């Protein structure tokens, strides 16, 4: 285990051997308290203020999707199907020794979180989905983020791309070599996750959602341009026990664009976690 200092909290990193040793999954861990599993969106894991705030009450475990970890891009070739992905994530949870974690997923990670909870109904204690993909209606098409020109991506992801938090997330290193590496890493991450969302981000999840056996909070940005807010009703129609919060002045990434409201909604839904001794 290696430990790196961040402004706050301390984020440590674990590498887990799963899938009979064929995959090494890197997991960022921070905070203290009951376990919270965070599944990142299509462009890869970025530690944001939302996770930092969650880490104040939970131990946040954030695994990196196969192929999205720096230095290990070809891991994606070891994963063939979405059912295998779900099993791999269950192995990650088991290997980490997590009992009934809260599972939070954003966008692509939201789809994974729902798949995991539908396949293993007793695995999570609760589910939080932030603008998840995974359902499809022809009259509300999900934007194709993989073929969106790079200069149009900010407007696809944020209601107000000039927002300070949005700018911080979009910022690129000044050094040309680092910038090229960062670009390549992000592009490859989108390609790796795209393996399970292309050409239509619908792998039949709708038929499986009824199996989810825990309370679900669906959070959506009202101005989400990538996947319209109308999908809230689609999710709620299939989920046995769900609550929805729609956040105003907010695009596809509520935990970045409206961090405070997102944290408030999630905290209210999850209730006060038990106090943990420091």
């Amino acid at each position, binding site marked *: 285990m290696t430990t790196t200092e961040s402004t706050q909290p301390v984020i440590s990193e674990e590498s887990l051997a799963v899938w009979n040793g*064929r995959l090494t999954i890197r997991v960022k861990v921070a905070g203290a308290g009951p376990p919270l599993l965070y599944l990142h969106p299509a462009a890869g894991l970025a530690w944001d203020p939302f996770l930092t705030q969650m880490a104040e009450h939970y131990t946040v475990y954030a695994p990196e999707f196969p*192929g999205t970890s720096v230095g290990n*891009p*070809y891991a*994606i*070739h*070891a994963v*063939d199907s979405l059912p295998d992905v779900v099993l791999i994530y269950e192995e990650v949870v088991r290997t980490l020794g997590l009992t009934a974690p809260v599972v939070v997923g954003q966008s692509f990670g939201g789809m994974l979180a729902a798949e995991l909870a539908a396949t293993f109904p007793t695995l999570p204690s609760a589910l939080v989905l932030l603008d998840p993909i995974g359902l499809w209606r022809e009259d509300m098409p999900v934007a194709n983020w*993989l*073929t*969106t*020109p*790079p200069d149009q991506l900010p407007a696809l992801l944020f209601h107000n791309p000039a927002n300070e938090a949005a700018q911080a997330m979009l910022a690129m290193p000044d050094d*040309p*070599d680092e*910038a*090229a*590496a960062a*670009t*390549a*890493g992000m*592009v*490859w*991450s*989108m*390609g*790796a996750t*795209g*393996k*399970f969302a*292309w*050409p239509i981000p619908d792998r039949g999840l709708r038929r499986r959602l009824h199996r989810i056996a825990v309370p679900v909070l669906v959070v959506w940005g009202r101005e989400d341009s990538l996947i319209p807010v109308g999908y809230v009703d689609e999710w709620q129609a299939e989920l046995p026990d769900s609550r929805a919060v729609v956040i105003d002045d907010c695009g596809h990434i509520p935990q970045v664009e409206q961090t405070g409201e997102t944290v408030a909604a999630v905290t209210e839904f999850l209730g006060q976690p038990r106090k943990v001794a420091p």
Partner: protein
Amino acid sequence: MKITLFEQAPYRYLPDDFEQHHESVCSTPYSLTTRDGVYSSVRDFLDELMHGARAGFDGVAVTEHGQSSYDMMPNPDLVASALAYMTETEGLDVAIYPMGRSLGKAREPLRVAEEYAFVDVVSGGRLVAGFPIGLHYDAAINNGIPPVEIRPRFDENLELILRAWSEEKPFPFNGRFSQYPQVNPWPRPLQGTPPVWITGLGNPRTMQMCFERNFGFNYLSWFGAKLTGQRIFDRFWELADKAGVERNPYRVGFLQTIAVAETDERAEKEYAEHLEYGFRKGLGSIPLEKLAIPGGIDIRGVQALAKDPSDFGLYLQMRGASFRELVDAGVVICGSPATVREQVGDFCRRYGIGNLHAMLNFGSLPRELTMRNIQLFAEEVAPSLRELWRDSGYTHYWWPERLGGKPTAPTEGGGATEGAVDTDTATRTAVHA
């Protein structure tokens, strides 16, 4: 040197301001076409290829592009089949060269093996089997393949096809992307395994595969050979040296757009507008985000391109490129027979190219001018270029035997996927890189 006539089937009557409003692939409104316009574009294209076959070209070559206004060619085997029968009927010893079926795109690889086998039989053993990896928009958008799967699919599909042609007994195929309980195609190619050619844009892994597996390598110089040629071919031959492969020019194919008239002045006058049409409304109007979709280019390739996009040559400026810019970048070579002989000859000599694919139709070029371009090239340019490498001592191992080649079978080796994972499925092409 072997010289093929290469053609695409562009829609030739697009509006003047097309490139300001439309993309040339996937989303292009079909309402821009007329019935007569589509018919003549396709009919003339076939007539022109046959004219080339009769004029003495060593081969006739076509490519595959679905949902495309610059090449209305969803399956090159349809054209190859027609050409195979026509040329066989007329007794023309010309290679039938689909460049061909994209294996990163194909969801029915056994069908590809069967189609090529059939074309080879109809042509009496004159097929050259081209297999491009696949353009991103064509594989991913037109056929729904996840971009990161394009290369792994290519590898598996090619493996199946080569086995289907060469194994005597029926076999089951348990692939990741396709499964068949019994593979036993009828007919098989008359040639056994026809010469195999791979089309690439410069990825070193693709080049390496060609060396390891005894495939020919085609570089289609759409981006401007004067900008990209040295980079690509230096890379190719350096990798050849490392692989311990001889610098045999016959293992390389090179495509060049060429426009030839009686004089330089006349060539510019007659061809300039059609060349501008071809590249502005064709390649220039394929947006980058459809030519390079995340996952389709290896992560190291993306990193290299992010720092230095020179492998893309003139592409990023092509939507508004002038005739002069196209010429200066080497996207086109336009002039008198002497000019063309000199420029094409110099290039092929310098970079060790033993197969020239002369693209002699482009954009809106009318039938009559295309026919004349083909005729002039065949009579005034090809004869001297064909002499190149004749006394070099090299043998052409990637050309049909019936047409004078000494083809040798593919060998074992790596595939086209960087970091591919060897699975327990039928991949004998596991990458050892």
